[in-house]
């Protein structure tokens, strides 16, 4: 009986086009020197477990979970992370410094990092990565209503803090 060679699946999922987006997202979520590692780890997971449904929220959801695991493992608290990241970046991250430089984008970045993790993720996924609420919900493993709530809260808090900085 002739042997049949196992066929390689015709379409192999290639996560490479998502590398830049994932790196950007992870860095803004608090990853710094380990962002590249986390992206690689995310890609490895895609080999172990091919995407189900929409790829985008699935990939970002994996990356976010890996970041959470790493933060837990490293014993870093969420509140401590922005400070840690600040010392490792070129961009001004301290809100006070950013105000002095009148750099709104830097202030927004710094203030975004002070948001609770899920609010921050919802805001970034929605605003910087073009997710709709369904996709945000899939990435955060929550309901769409919850995803909306996180986004609304984040946007209002950030608006107020940016304005309050203006008033100083």
């Amino acid at each position, binding site marked *: 009986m002739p042997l049949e060679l196992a066929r390689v699946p015709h379409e192999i999922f290639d996560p490479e086009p998502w590398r830049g987006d994932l790196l950007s997202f992870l860095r803004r979520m608090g990853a710094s020197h380990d962002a590249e590692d986390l992206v690689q780890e995310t890609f490895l997971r895609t080999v172990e477990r091919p995407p189900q449904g929409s790829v985008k929220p699935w990939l970002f959801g994996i990356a976010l979970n890996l970041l959470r695991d790493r933060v837990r493992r490293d014993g870093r608290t969420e509140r401590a992370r922005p400070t840690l990241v600040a010392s490792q970046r070129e961009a001004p991250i301290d809100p006070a410094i950013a105000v002095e430089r009148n750099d709104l984008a830097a202030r927004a970045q710094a203030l975004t990092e002070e948001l609770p993790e899920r609010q921050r993720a919802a805001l970034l996924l929605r605003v910087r990565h073009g997710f709709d609420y369904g996709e945000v919900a899939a990435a955060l493993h929550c*309901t769409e209503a919850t995803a909306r709530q996180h986004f609304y809260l984040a946007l209002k808090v950030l608006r107020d803090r940016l*304005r309050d900085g203006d008033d100083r």
Partner: protein
Amino acid sequence: MNAHATNDRDGCPEFDFALMDLAAGDAVDATTREHLARCGRCSLALAAYRGTIDAVRGSVTTLAPRARMSFTWMHAAAALIVIALGARLARHEPPPRVVEVAAIDARPSDDAALTRLGADTARLDAGMCTFLMGAAMGVVQTPLGAISCNDCAFTVRVGPLPELVDDDACNDDTHVQIEVLRGLVATSMLDQPRVLAAGQWMTISGP
């Protein structure tokens, strides 16, 4: 800071969420667009939301014009709201039933659960009701707190808003939305709401 608490940077409460969606790039319905075209408060709120989102995207270096209403503007906006609501009532709805609660004139919706508790006190447990306070101080109790004022008019809506219920951020799905006709609006899920009446912000005392 609690983002649920409405402040003078927010749009009108019934359109505020749609404004945030619009700022994020979503399409909005015709009602919202029409309202936006004639509401200065919502226009300012939308500009602030857009400015914030642009800042997060890193695409701007200055904020949009400040969404802070001047005292005069606020009164003009409030007057417009009163006129618009009045015109709407006159056009589309039968004359409201009026319930006399001592010093308080109450105009409850059909499904409102309104109870008179005393000479100057009423309690609204569900539904919507407009209260017209006379010169004497009146008190309206709601599940989230009590509103007291004199010589003011406001509408209180008590009930769950399912789209706002957060399954992991909110322990209580009771939502109280308060609209003050001659002032501003307070909306709260978790925080104590405030009411602006007769030009004065008043904190609503908790239960």
